[in-house]
């Protein structure tokens, strides 16, 4: 698995990942050494139900180029 990294644009992507599924899946991607661009920063949440729209807006407000909610 690989994603095209031959681009000069370095986005700032904030991911909110549920501890029980998506965060664990990101760990699993690591265990399998699946490579992906280093522009992703994962914030662990206890559950996707914890996500407040305020947090998404905050990320954009502070200059994030993309926000991924996963759970």
């Amino acid at each position, binding site marked *: 698995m690989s994603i095209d990294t031959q681009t000069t644009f370095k986005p700032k992507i904030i991911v909110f990942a549920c501890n029980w599924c998506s965060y664990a899946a990101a760990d699993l991607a690591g265990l399998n050494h699946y490579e992906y661009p280093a522009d992703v920063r994962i914030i662990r949440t206890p559950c996707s139900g914890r996500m407040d*729209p305020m947090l998404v807006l905050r990320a954009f407000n502070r200059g994030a180029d993309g926000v991924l909610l996963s759970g």
Partner: protein
Amino acid sequence: MVAVAQHPNIELITLAEVVKVTGYIGNFNVTIKKKAKYVDWDLCNGCGTCIDKCPTKKIKDEFDFGMGLRPAIHKLFPQAVPGKPYIDPLNCTKLTKDKCGICEKVCPTGAIRYNDVDQLVTEEVGAIVMATGYDSFNWQDAYGEYGYGKYPDVISGLEFERLVSAGGPTQGKILRPSDGKEPKHIAFIKCVGSRDDTKGKSYCSRACCMYTAKHAYQVKTKIEDSEAYVFYMDVRTAGKNYEEFYQRALNAGAKYIRGRVSKIYPRGDKLILKTEDTLMGMALEVEADMVVLATAMVPAAGAVQLAKTIGFSVDKDGFFQEAHPKLQPVETFTAGVYLAGTCQGPKDIPDTVAQASGAAVKVCGMFSKNELVTEAMVSEVDISKCSGCGLCVPICPYGAISLQEINERGGHGHGPFTRQIAEINSSLCQGCGACLPACRTTALNLKGFTNDQLVSEVDALCL
């Protein structure tokens, strides 16, 4: 069954249902309604004289789906555990018309109690295992093409089980319910209610392929010169020794025909099945003496209500929802409540037994501790901010939030007053934080994942 009744650690409460559950993991209070039996089981020695002497003998036996008869005082079936009789209050002439009273006269131990009433008892328990099982899909309401149940020789798989059982109404002889003759040609239709989005359920009921193979095999071995036609969509035999068993039915001479039956109608004393053979690509008309429908498994009547009473969730079909489909198949979202068997989803006997043992281990694991540690990262309420709007209450999947009244001293020209606030039961809260986005006044916060903490993480990353 007898092992259960004889076990010194097991207390059996039959003819009973759960009406109320309060508390939380380790500390549940369960209220049970014990229905009136009209027989004192402590005195009854199970001799059965009352059953023999009861003059009201012609009641259709529900256990045999009305194919046999029973008296008003009876056991569910002869080998019932506990092996003691009870009175069916709707059919007993003593209870309905105050006439008769024979059972009281013949009872050698004086155990009959016509004035018996339902009783409520409350039990304290630390864990609950749900094992409420399944019901057969009510095909009579959905399948008009199979006669809505008006042809007596179109029966369900469970009815066939009674016909073929040595303890059944025919002592194990396969006989037609309509005229008591032995059928020679028997058709089996699989997936009646299963895998049928339009009339039934979308899911596969998992056990039907195998029990239909068993039925076909039994027809071929019990009735001479018989034919067993099995109409199927797929044959699913995923299980140890299952494919081999299916082959055994084929080798015994069962005829498997891939196709759905579109209509059943009578011709003389036969039933005609209009169908197709999709492998041959041709329409078929098959004559049968009896038709057996492999009906879907659906949740037991009252299961959804019971889940509500206890406080855990059900899936779209009304089966009890496990906490995780792969990793937590016996847990529910409510800590301390575990699942076993078909109440969680259709499954066969080996899977049921395995899941039940799994649930038992979860309970024993919990009981191995004297105290349970509660989650430290739970929600908390800032009562100075809480407006008591209650929006968080239905959001909580664990039922951990309730509204409470508190007294305020007043001030600024107001006297003392009471107001509502949300209160978190930290034993029930699992720390998911789903209540936070629902809170309009930010009175709710989740310890360890506070708004402040998550905002600071976002800010730090976006620096």
